[in-house]
């Protein structure tokens, strides 16, 4: 093979080896656990409103959706209601689960996208946010999409008034 043939091919093959190696070395096991990583931020925000985390609740028998459960334990106050916070990492596939939870307990359900309260699952905004996050990660600007479904049963206070915007700072 002549040099003029070898050089272009060699350039491409070297680039290929490097790019594939980069992808393999940065490959991570997907987080299949619905127990979201940044629950501490939620703990802090809900804690200010008098809620304490009491555990986790599996919404499916697999680990696809796991909600963090909170109780309202304000001083001299008894509330039987529960609050379920579930991460919605993909799309609207899990919406029906949190809606069913809220309905069973005559409660409320709403969605949070980067601290903003939405009545219905913000499909388009969530998709655009994921695209922006992906671009941000490519450009080395680490972004985290804060995207949750909140369901409450027998609520004793309006959860929508909780300062969710603080999640962005937490």
């Amino acid at each position, binding site marked *: 093979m002549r040099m*003029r043939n070898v050089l*272009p091919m060699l350039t*491409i093959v070297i680039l*290929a080896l*490097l790019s594939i190696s980069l992808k*393999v070395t940065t490959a991570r096991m997907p987080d299949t656990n619905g127990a979201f990583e940044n629950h501490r931020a939620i703990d802090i925000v809900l804690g200010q409103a008098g809620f304490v985390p009491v555990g986790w609740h599996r919404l499916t028998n697999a680990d696809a959706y796991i909600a963090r459960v909170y109780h309202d334990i304000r001083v001299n106050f008894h509330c039987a209601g529960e609050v379920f916070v579930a991460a919605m990492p993909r*799309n609207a596939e899990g919406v029906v689960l949190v809606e069913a939870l809220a309905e069973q307990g005559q409660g409320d359900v709403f969605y949070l996208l980067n601290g903003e309260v939405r009545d219905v699952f913000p499909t388009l905004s969530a998709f655009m946010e994921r695209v922006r996050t992906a671009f941000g990660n490519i450009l080395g600007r680490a972004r985290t999409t804060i995207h949750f479904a909140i369901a409450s049963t027998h609520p004793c206070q309006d959860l929508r008034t909780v300062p969710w915007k603080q999640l962005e700072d937490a």
Partner: protein
Amino acid sequence: MIRSDLSIQTIFAVTAVIGFLNAVARPVAVTIEKEGALSALLSGLGMNPILAASFVLAIILVLHSAPRPVRQHHFVLALAVSVGLFIPSATVAWLMLGALAAAILLDKSLPENMRAGGAIMMAVAMRDPLSRALLDLFAEPLLAFDGRVAAIWLSTFYDQVGHRGNLIIGPDGHRLLILTGCSSFANLSYSLLAWFAVSRAFLSSFTRRVWIAGAGISVLVPVLNHLRLARMGLDAEAYVFFHSGEGRYWFEAGIVLITCTLILWGTRHANAQCPADADHRHSGAA
């Protein structure tokens, strides 16, 4: 000016293989990490075999076309794609492969065989980003449709069956949530990819029969998936059997059988020709 005896086919095929390997590198690495090398290899490296087979078909078509000398802009494109693949994203890798396929597809001076390979390559490259975007944007209606049809199937044999969106409620209160990965659309995208790849590889133009075969696949593959979902919605045992047990393999075999039968039916009596021969005829090669 770059002077080389290499053909466009060689440069583009090598770049396409690199693009494909970049696109599947992460899932393959994760599968190996999770299952171990041998087990992962035996299970096809966590890759859908249709995806790999269609890509191989595309590469064969590209390489089996009458060779054309590479020009500088071809090399620049191949180099740009190779550099673009450094972006650490599988979606970007698919899009880079799509860009390369578009360059082949849009260049009408290239041999027909190579352009057929480009069309298949485009379908392989765009399946993942497109189906991902569609399933994210239309998850609710698509999954709710699956839930509704599966519940209708189940209710023909059992009483007290219901559904709410993508949640099927079985006769004994057993509940099945249809997740994105179990949607009929996901299975259909692979079957239609196989249909398009084989039909485009062996036929110079799509006949009425080919279109009917495509329509048949579009109906029967979701029907089979709805039957499986209905069965999984019955009770926990059926769920395990059809989701991760033997039933899953029966279901996959059924999908393959339906897809292959209809593809063969669609392409069998069509005016099949080997574009590679056509290219050689036109170029006067033996």
